[in-house]
């Protein structure tokens, strides 16, 4: 694995950007990696653009992904890919909402977790950590829909 993996998750307020980054950071943590995550709260809650940075690896310093160095840009809204494109490194991968077939989701609000599934295809993180992090971060009534969403995203 590269020294530090940098992921930027983008979307609009209310789409579940922060929940997705919480889950991803928790997966890395459960896997025993050093991890930091960072975002700006506040004004972003009112439907505006939101981004959250997650970085993990052997040793992480800055919690913010430097521009031009993200390995992955996940966007819950297609409009936010262009806004955040500059954060991606030359070999970086953008994962937009079209990376999953939304019609297969039992709950439309679980797009964030489905996109984590799409991200999981590219990462060497154990399935068990993903599962545990998803279960730990969501109320029980949402478990099934989100585990399903993750599987949908991962199967591509």
């Amino acid at each position, binding site marked *: 694995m590269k020294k530090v993996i940098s992921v930027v998750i983008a979307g609009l307020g209310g789409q579940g950007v922060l929940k997705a980054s919480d889950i991803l950071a928790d997966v890395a943590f459960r896997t025993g990696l050093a991890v930091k995550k960072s975002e700006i709260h506040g004004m972003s809650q009112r439907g505006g653009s939101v981004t959250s940075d997650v970085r993990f690896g052997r040793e992480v310093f800055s*919690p*913010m992904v430097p521009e031009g160095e993200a390995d992955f840009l996940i966007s819950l809204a297609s409009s*936010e890919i262009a806004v955040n494109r500059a954060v991606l490194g030359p070999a970086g991968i953008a994962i937009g909402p079209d990376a999953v077939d939304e019609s297969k989701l039992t709950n439309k609000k679980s797009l964030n977790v489905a996109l984590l599934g799409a991200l999981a295809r590219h990462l060497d993180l154990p399935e068990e950590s993903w599962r545990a992090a998803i279960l730990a971060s969501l109320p029980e009534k949402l478990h099934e829909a989100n585990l399903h969403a993750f599987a949908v995203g991962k199967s591509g």
Partner: protein
Amino acid sequence: MSPPEIRQLMSGDEAVALAALHASVHLGTGYPGTPSTEILEHFETLGGRAQWAPNEKVALEVGIGVSFAGGRAIVTMKHVGLNVAADPLFTVAYTGVEGALVVVSADDPGMASSQNEQDNRRFAVAAGVPMLEPADSQEAYDFTLLAMEISERWRMPVLLRMTTRVCHSKTIVATPGYPVPPARVPAFVRSVPERVMIPAYARPAHLRLRAKLAEIEAWNEHKGPMVRVDGDRKLGIITSGISYQHVREAAPDACVLKIGLTYPLPMEAMCKFAESVERCFVIEEGDPFLVEAVRAAGAKVQGRPAMYRCGELNVNRVRRILAGDLSPEAKPVPGKPPELCPGCPHRIVFEILRDLDCIVAGDIGCYTLGVLPPFSAMDTVVCMGASVGVGLGMRHVLPEKDARRVVSVIGDSTFVHSGITGLVEMVYNPPKTGHVLLILDNGTTAMTGLQEHPGTGRTLGHQPTGQISFEALASALGVKHVTVLDPTLRPAELRTCIEEALARQELSVIITRRNCLLAAGAIKRYEKNHEKGN
């Protein structure tokens, strides 16, 4: 044997709360403000005793009382909150404390959600209060405990300066850090010369303060929470707080000296470090605080070029500073700006003010978004509560035709915070044309994430308590025309009401009352629970 270490991923705010719990803090108090709000909420969730004060000044005064009585207190606020609390801060530095008093100032470099980016390290110097600056959640935890220890050892208040990225980033925290002496049982001990700041007692108190600071400075030189990273002697970097993280990534081979207690500064250690390397940079966010101090002490160091003076630092900006790169920085692609929620009860108010072509003295909260299209109905925003005074000032001097267009608009929580004294001014020094004050009461402190306040009648933990009635207050102060309206249900009536208020040369208070859409469900639940409880 020490208890087993527990590792958790948590935000800086959560780490401060956890440390407060582990330090057996008797009371946490403060006023909500991004990025500090989560500290008290989390402290309460963990089982600590936490409460919202009407504003930061009152919060600090309550905290001072706790510590005078021998208890431990933590008082939280955003950076501009410390302006409000400055009055008690400057004098509690003189009186000193009995139990620990830790004041958290959450600064917001880059103004993610603030009206300025003041650097509160200046307050530490101005007030003579020691200041700790954590660089991640682990240090937020450790430094909160250390702040308690310093506060009780030297019997003085301690400032803990967080910044947005430290408050809101999640990093791994291993607890317990180190043991804190158990808190005492609060008890009153009379000590008039220490606690009553009449000039005769304040003069020796000031001398005591300076002596304590000299002791803490000596302690900081030898035992302070500094981090030294050995590296290539060609480049040395002095830094503090979150900037340390950017520095380690931007210059992995450099020697680094990170200052943990940034007031009083360990000047000897800093100067020695600067001399020990070929080139020494000072990398810091905000004001040129460290760099000015080191330069004044005679050391040769390089600071940031002026173009890096404002906003947050990040890894790339630190790289550019170290490389002396003065080329223009790329402008970020603008994203979607925030807006008032669809169905927000404030929307109709700003539509009316826009259509009536009012001059709107605005205030701090969600409703500040009334400044943006499609409303474009706000003309001034300065600080918490300023809408009332600024509106009055404009009415006093504008030609009558324009004076009559002026309204002040303030939210419910902001009104309690510092609009009440403005309303007193309105009654005491009314403009010739009268004035119109609109209180947008959405039943919560919405902007910071739906916190309770004295107008909601519920505590921080959403339990019923005393409730301030804005209409009764306005009437009691002598305002003749006080109206309460639901803006969503009665928009036409609201428009007429505002038109009439603007037309008459008297004082009017119009309260638009309807719960914030985001809070409405929870408010119903709290009310139901309360009814069941009865």
